[in-house]
Structures are given as structure tokens and as C-alpha cells.
């Protein structure tokens, strides 16, 4: 196990201020980067093998190389709208080490020649936004943001934009629309943001963790960074662990480590020695895995081979005492609430699924509804404008596939419960009628 990169000394008091950050050698990687040629810098990023940490796992170097050259205004946008349930790693980075993010962002901006840049932070992170805002102001005061930074001739502007509570704004094109002051509806792709993004200019969008990792790449060099982790999954990854777990929190791990090591080794497993029923490997929108999959290596390819996705790297552990119907209910409720409503399968499919799970809880569903539910999930996946619909359909589909018995048992139990209740009500009403007639 290597040292921590992103979390290096992150609990150091005052690290969120520029003085402490500078004292630790902050912004030296930026100065090094500014001396490099743009093309070399992008090659360096490509060579590092760093894949986007937001969920899609797209290599950052490739993404940066898609940004066209030319005189048009280009943008780098940092996606700090971390709203995937179970994910809270970016929050820790922003709150404790904002300058690392700013440094990484400016390096990326220099790499693609973007002079106007934004960090879009979710509206709920009020304290974090204030800390980040203060950090940006400090950097601006020190000339790290502004005209001709470090005498390189490169000028850069950075603004913080706040969201206002919409999960869909974490989708990159939804975020761009939100940043343009519109409803945060995802856009049709193509054109991709790299060609036509913010204000129709070429835009590089990356997640906080991805950008925060850039200074380490410059420090270690592409090869040094690529050496960490496993093939096609380079570097360290922040893992947020939550749910039924002894020690919830963020852990920085080297990609490729076994999942069991993270869940049991680092986070202590479920409390009171309970067994794991299922776990989400990458946030609530990834298909669930079961206790049988605990020995899967925690990296992009292994998790995918196991039938799920690394996503945002947020592990939610569900122990044996929890009901899968309740889990499906929460999932469907969340996604139907957060669907932007632009495309039909997602808007109607999420709401329909929610109503179906609701009926299971009410005791008015039949096992046939499970087939309909599974079929509906299949018709959502791949048919939507963005991946929000898939984000509900995949975990719910996997829950039905893996825990069908439990669903059926609960349907049966709830039906019986409902019938018992109705019979009791009926009996009570009859007694009353008899009383009246008597």
C-alpha cells in the first residue's frame, strides 16, 4: 500500500488556507506544469491513466485531448455537484483541502487553454462553498488566479457557482444548463461538451476528485502515477463507505484492492457482526452485489466483470436486517423525485416503478407485478436521454433479479396483512351495524 495522495495530511489544521497549503509546497506542481508545453501536459495526463472519478470513468487525458485547439473561448468546469447517494468524498476534499482542487483545476485549464473556469458546487454544501469561495479569493489575492499567473503569460479566471438542489445537475450537460441559468435538463449528445459545452464553447468537465489528483500526477510523473493501482485502473481512489457499517467515512485506497478488505478491513464490516445482504459498489445507481462478490477486486474492470460498476466509488452496505422492498422503495422514490422530466422513459418509468413498489408495500401487488417491474426497468435502460433512468433501472433490476424470493415473500406477507386488516375493519363495521340495528 502506497501513501495517501489525495488525503495526504488532510486533517492538518488550517490546510484550507493558502498559507498552510503553500507551506506544504502547494502550487509548486502548478508552476512546474506552467513550464511544460500544452501537448506534453496532455500526454502526461493521458499517460497517468487517470480515469474520471465522477462515475463514468472516462480517461481524463483523452477527454482533454478532445478539446479543439483554436481561438475560441474554452472552459474548464469542475463538477462539485456531488449528489449520488452514498458519495461524500468530494465534500471532504473541498472542505479540507480546497487549494489542491484549485491547483489541479488550473493545471487542467492550462492544458486545454481555458481562461474562464467554473466550479459548480451543489447548493446543499453551504459551508463547503464558503470555504472554497474563501480559498478562491485567497488564490486570487496571491495572483494564482488572474492575469499572467507565475509569469507564465497564462491568465485564468475561476468562479464558484452554486447549485440549488437537483441531483440531475451532477450530469455533466445538466450541470452546464444549470450553469447557464436554465433548468438543469441534460442535453442531447452529441455534441459533446468537449466540442460544444458551456456557452457553446469547448468545455472540459471533471469531478473534484479527478482534478484534485492532477497535482499528484505532475509530482509523480505519468509513469509514477500509473504504477499505482492495477491495469486500466491507475492511481488511488477515495471510497466513501456508508450504510450498515461500523466505521463509515472516506478511505483512500489503491485501485485493485479487494472489496472485502475495504468493507471489513478498513470500515469494520456491518455492526454487531451482522451479515451483509447486499452492497452497492459505486453509489446507489449501480447494480447491487451480494456477499458472494466481496472478494472482487475494487477496480473499474473487476467490478464491471462482477456485473456492476465502480461509479463514484461509494460503497453502501446493506445488512441482513434490512428489507429489499424498502430499499427499492427508497431508490425509486429518490430517482422519480430527481428525474428532470425531459425524456419520457425516465420521467414516466421512474414514477411508475415507484407506484409499483408502493403497491407492494400497501399489499395490493401480485408477483406478476414483479415481472412488469423488471420489464419496465429493461425498457428504461438505454432508452433515455441521460443515465438517470438507467441509474434507477439498474439497481432495481438487479434487486429484483437477485432477491426475487424476498420480494415475493414480502408481497405475500403484505397482502395477507392487508386482508387481515380489511377483514378486521369489516368485522368492526358489522358489529357497529348490528349495534345500530339492535
Amino acid at each position, binding site marked *: 500500500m502506497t501513501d495517501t495522495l489525495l488525503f495526504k495530511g488532510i486533517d492538518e489544521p488550517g490546510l484550507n488556507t493558502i498559507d498552510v497549503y503553500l507551506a506544504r509546497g502547494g502550487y509548486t506542481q502548478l508552476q512546474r506544469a506552467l513550464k511544460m508545453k500544452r501537448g506534453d501536459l496532455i500526454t502526461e495526463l493521458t499517460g497517468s491513466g487517470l480515469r474520471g472519478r465522477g462515475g463514468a470513468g472516462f480517461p481524463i487525458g483523452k477527454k482533454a485531448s478532445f478539446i479543439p485547439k483554436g481561438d475560441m473561448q474554452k472552459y474548464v468546469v469542475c463538477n462539485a455537484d456531488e*449528489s449520488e447517494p452514498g458519495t461524500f468524498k468530494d465534500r471532504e476534499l473541498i472542505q479540507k483541502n480546497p487549494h489542491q482542487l484549485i491547483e489541479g483545476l488550473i493545471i487542467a485549464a492550462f492544458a486545454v487553454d481555458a481562461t474562464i473556469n467554473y466550479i459548480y458546487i451543489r447548493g446543499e454544501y453551504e*459551508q463547503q462553498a464558503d470555504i472554497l469561495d474563501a480559498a478562491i479569493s485567497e488564490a486570487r489575492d496571491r495572483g494564482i488566479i488572474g492575469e499572467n499567473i507565475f509569469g507564465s503569460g497564462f491568465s485564468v479566471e475561476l468562479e464558484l457557482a452554486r447549485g440549488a438542489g437537483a441531483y440531475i445537475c451532477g450530469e455533466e450537460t445538466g450541470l452546464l444548463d*444549470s450553469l447557464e*441559468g436554465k433548468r438543469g435538463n441534460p442535453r442531447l449528445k452529441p455534441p459533446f461538451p468537449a466540442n460544444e459545452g458551456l456557452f457553446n464553447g469547448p468545455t472540459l468537465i471533471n469531478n473534484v476528485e479527478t482534478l484534485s489528483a492532477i497535482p499528484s500526477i505532475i509530482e509523480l510523473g505519468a509513469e509514477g502515477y500509473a504504477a499505482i493501482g492495477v491495469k486500466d485502473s491507475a492511481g488511488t481512489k477515495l471510497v466513501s463507505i*456508508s*450504510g450498515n457499517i461500523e466505521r463509515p467515512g472516506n478511505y483512500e485506497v489503491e485501485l485493485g484492492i479487494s472489496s472485502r478488505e475495504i468493507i471489513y478491513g478498513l470500515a469494520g464490516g456491518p455492526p454487531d457482526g451482522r451479515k451483509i445482504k447486499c452492497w452497492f459498489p459505486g453509489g446507489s445507481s449501480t447494480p447491487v452485489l451480494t456477499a458472494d462478490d466481496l472478494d472482487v477486486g475494487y477496480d473499474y474492470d473487476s467490478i464491471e466483470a462482477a456485473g456492476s460498476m465502480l461509479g463514484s466509488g461509494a460503497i453502501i452496505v446493506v445488512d441482513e436486517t434490512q428489507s429489499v422492498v424498502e*430499499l427499492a422503495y427508497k431508490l425509486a422514490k429518490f430517482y422519480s423525485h430527481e428525474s428532470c422530466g425531459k425524456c419520457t422513459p425516465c420521467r414516466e418509468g421512474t414514477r411508475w416503478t415507484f407506484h409499483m413498489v408502493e403497491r407492494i408495500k400497501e399489499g395490493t401487488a401480485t408477483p406478476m407485478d414483479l415481472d412488469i417491474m423488471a420489464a419496465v426497468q429493461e425498457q428504461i435502460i438505454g432508452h433515455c436521454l441521460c443515465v438517470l433512468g438507467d441509474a434507477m433501472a439498474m439497481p432495481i433490476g438487479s434487486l429484483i433479479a437477485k432477491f426475487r424470493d424476498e420480494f415475493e415473500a414480502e408481497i405475500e406477507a403484505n397482502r395477507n396483512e392487508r386482508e387481515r386488516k380489511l377483514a378486521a375493519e369489516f368485522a368492526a363495521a358489522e358489529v357497529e351495524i348490528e349495534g345500530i340495528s339492535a
Partner: protein
Amino acid sequence: MADVQRHVARFTHGSRIPGWDRAADLEKEPAVVPDAATTEVPGELRAAIEDAVRRFPVGDSAFIPALYAVQAQYGWCSPEGIEQAAAVLGRTPAALTAVATFYDMFEMEPLGRKSVYVCTNISCSLVGADQLLAALEEELGEDPDVNLRGFECLGACDIAPMASVDGVYVGPIELGEVPELANQIRQGDDPLPAKQLIRRPCADPKVAEQ
């Protein structure tokens, strides 16, 4: 005709949607861009919006900051406030309302100024968020100053179950602490200082080793 039925019964859905039954008031004038000459805007609201406009190359980008400013001014996104913001931005109030209603944090009705969001998403609900919300509702439900609501994932699953009190994250909250927290919210005190997220160290043991 023997018995003319005047009202035709309709059955309604469980989730009625605010606004769906709203007709236009035909007496009103169309809501075009409010004329700057005849719309009075409070000074601080204007200043806040104009400051936001300066930060973006396109004025529309200032919609969200402008709505925050309106909410700060009036406690909610009142039609009056939206019209004023629209006059400053030179856009129709409808364009602003469309954006405001899209986001969860903009209130379209006058509610308590103290907003308390309780995360009820998966991670939190696995460890008892619904009970926490119910307990807080019991304590604070009646308070007109407090806008208490269950909220979708607030991004603090490590301190589940948790709440955000005017942006200050606290957790994990035990049910026994609810009366104390409710009291602090009512008084406007710092909520559960010891359990605020901002003071929580990183969970990764490697960080502590360094």
C-alpha cells in the same frame, strides 16, 4: 330531464401536484419582461443580482444567484421578488420561475426562515433517518419559523443519520439528542457543536498516522 347532475365525480390520484389545477387569470396582463422604469427593486437585491451578473459572460447564468438573493430578501421566491429580479435581469418572470421550481432549495411558498433538512436517502435511512425525521417533526412540526423537510441525499452519509441546519451539517444524531437539537434550532443556537461535520476528522486511519 329528471335529475340533472351538476357535478361529475372524478377520482383523484394520491399525489396531487401543485399548480396543475391552476388556470390563468384572464383579468391579468400578460407577464412580459417587467419594465425597469416602473418596477421598484430594493437596493440590496439589485446589488446582489448585478454582482452575480458581472461574474458570468451571459446574464442568464445569474438566475440561480438572483433567486438566492430573492429568497434571502423575502424568505421565499415570492412573485413580487421574482418580478423584481426579472426586471433587473431583463428577462420574463416566467423564465425565472421555471428555474426556481426546478430546484429543491427554492421555496415557492412562504415557509419558515430556518431551514432544517433531514437526509432520508438510502444510507441515512438504513440507520434510522425516517425515525429521526419523525422525531424532529414531533418537536418542530408546529413551529412556523422552521422549514423542516426530508431531503434527498445531502452528501454526508458518514454521519448518518444527519440533518442540515441552515447549511450546518450535524450527525450522527441519536434520537435522544433530538429535543436538545430542536431547542437549539428554535433558539438559533449552534446545533450540536460536538457533532458538526466540520469538526470531524477523516475516517481513513492512514491520515491519522501521518
